[in-house]
């Protein structure tokens, strides 16, 4: 934990230096997507890694944010910020309503319930074509705040990079706070946490709502960045990708989420030259990761590094 400020600083330096080596907008786009995924994975890691719960429908909340932005700005003429807040509050409200019944479930049942939720959201987005444009999606206007408009991949890059650093800082604070300690405790030993006065169902619900809110905000911002939304944003496969980022990077590791997101975003691009075999290679690499680094990339390497010292 004590090394983390240095790691945060190091990441800041890397993010600040990256534009010097990024040759064109294609690479900018990849890095921006890495950063977006890292932020969403970070929020999901609070739920999966720290609280020990699972959500296989997290892309659904991302989709809610993206579509709230698209629909409210295009059809109703709302200001982007209003739409962003409305989407996030809506996603949080949906999560809150479902949290109580969902978190009475555990393990496989919890996985099924969240999976179903994600699929439902994706289906609604696909079928309500009158509002959502259906499978074809719809265009989204630019993000302008107080007369200033974020424009071009460089500005977006700085915007998302700053958001990532602030998110990491906030998540670190959170898990070190009394709330975060209780969250980690209910993961480690639910009975002990209960006996210490932690209302475990409530805590699980709060962090679920929070990570839904987080995902929705990122969905809204992503919609503005891409300028277009399709139901794929809320897709089941994106949910699985997010969970994979958390697990491969390292559960309960903040920088694990960042590394996992970077890796899983870059891999398909790097493997694209394999022509048709990229999915196979992708799966194989993931399997090897899980076999040889079951605790996740960052925690395993961190443990190896400290042992050598």
């Amino acid at each position: 934990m004590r090394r983390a400020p240095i790691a945060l600083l190091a990441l800041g330096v890397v993010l600040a230096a990256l534009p010097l080596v990024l040759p064109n907008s294609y690479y900018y786009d990849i890095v921006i997507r890495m950063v977006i995924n890292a932020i969403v994975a970070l929020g999901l890691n609070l739920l999966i890694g720290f609280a020990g719960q699972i959500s296989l429908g997290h892309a659904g909340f991302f989709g809610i944010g993206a579509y709230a932005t698209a629909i409210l700005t295009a059809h109703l003429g709302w200001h982007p910020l209003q739409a962003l807040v409305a989407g996030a509050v809506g996603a949080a409200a949906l999560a809150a309503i479902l949290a109580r019944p969902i978190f009475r479930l555990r393990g496989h049942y919890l996985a099924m319930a969240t999976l179903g939720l994600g699929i439902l959201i994706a289906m609604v987005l696909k079928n309500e074509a009158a509002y959502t444009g259906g499978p074809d999606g719809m265009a989204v206007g630019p993000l302008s705040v107080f007369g200033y408009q974020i424009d071009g991949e460089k500005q977006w890059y700085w915007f998302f990079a700053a958001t990532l650093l602030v998110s990491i800082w906030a998540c670190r604070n959170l898990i070190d706070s009394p709330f975060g300690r209780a969250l980690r405790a209910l993961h480690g030993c639910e009975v002990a946490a209960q006996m210490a006065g932690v209302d475990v169902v409530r805590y699980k619900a709060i962090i679920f709502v929070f990570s839904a809110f987080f995902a929705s905000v990122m969905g809204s911002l992503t919609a503005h960045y891409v300028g277009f939304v399709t139901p794929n944003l809320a897709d089941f496969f994106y949910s699985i990708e997010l969970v994979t980022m958390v697990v491969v990077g390292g559960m309960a590791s903040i920088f694990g989420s960042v590394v996992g997101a970077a890796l899983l975003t870059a891999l398909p691009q790097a493997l694209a030259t394999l022509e048709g075999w990229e999915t196979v290679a992708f799966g194989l690499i993931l399997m090897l990761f899980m076999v040889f680094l079951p605790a996740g990339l960052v925690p395993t390497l961190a443990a190896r590094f400290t042992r050598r010292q």
Partner: protein
Amino acid sequence: MVLLEVSGLSKAFSGVMAVQDVSFRVEAGLVYSVIGPNGAGKTTLFNLITGIYQPSSGEIRLEGEQITGLPPHRLAQKGLARTFQNLQVCMNLSALENVMLGAHLSLDRNLLKGMLSFPRIRRADRALREQAAELMRFVGLKDYLGSPAGAMPYGALKRLEIARALAAKPRLLFLDEPAAGLNPKETAQIDALVRQLADRELTVVLVEHDMKMVMNISDRILVLNYGKKLVEGSAREVRNDPEVIAAYLGRAA
């Protein structure tokens, strides 16, 4: 003053009466022990009082207030704390954090304030860290102040649970076999520790198999057998009771 009053408490597990019509009172500031042969229902009784199980019938009152069937986190708010016979330690936390968890309810648990690292939250947490370290020294864990809980031996974890329970500053402390599985030296240390707690006027309800410890420190003793109350009394009364001797050693033919 009667702190805890249990009346007519019963628990059936699919027809088997694990605890049957048990009644007793615990006076404030005393050490009250529950003993009995294996399977007598001691831990079940603890689990009923601390909200882990729901009683089938009966009543539990804390200073006259009805607390029957409340969940553990509500009971913690009312000043109950306990340790567990089979360890319940958060292995993903450090030893110190486990003890700090015990004081959960005394802290500001707001998510947003925590996330923005409000100075007041940080200060309170730093003060708690000191208190938790102090408690760890008190229970004899000063060598583990910087350890992850997962790296601690069994005997130390037993004491860590006691420190965590104490961190809650409970009105009523339940210790479920604190000396179980320990060697004679460790048992003597736990014995001394529980005695220190008793000297601090803390009300302790103790389940323990180590008879020397029980007889030494208990003000009152409740003997359970087959889920029923067999005898209740002082150490001397219980020790000489023919029913108790029969339950432990078997009845002479």
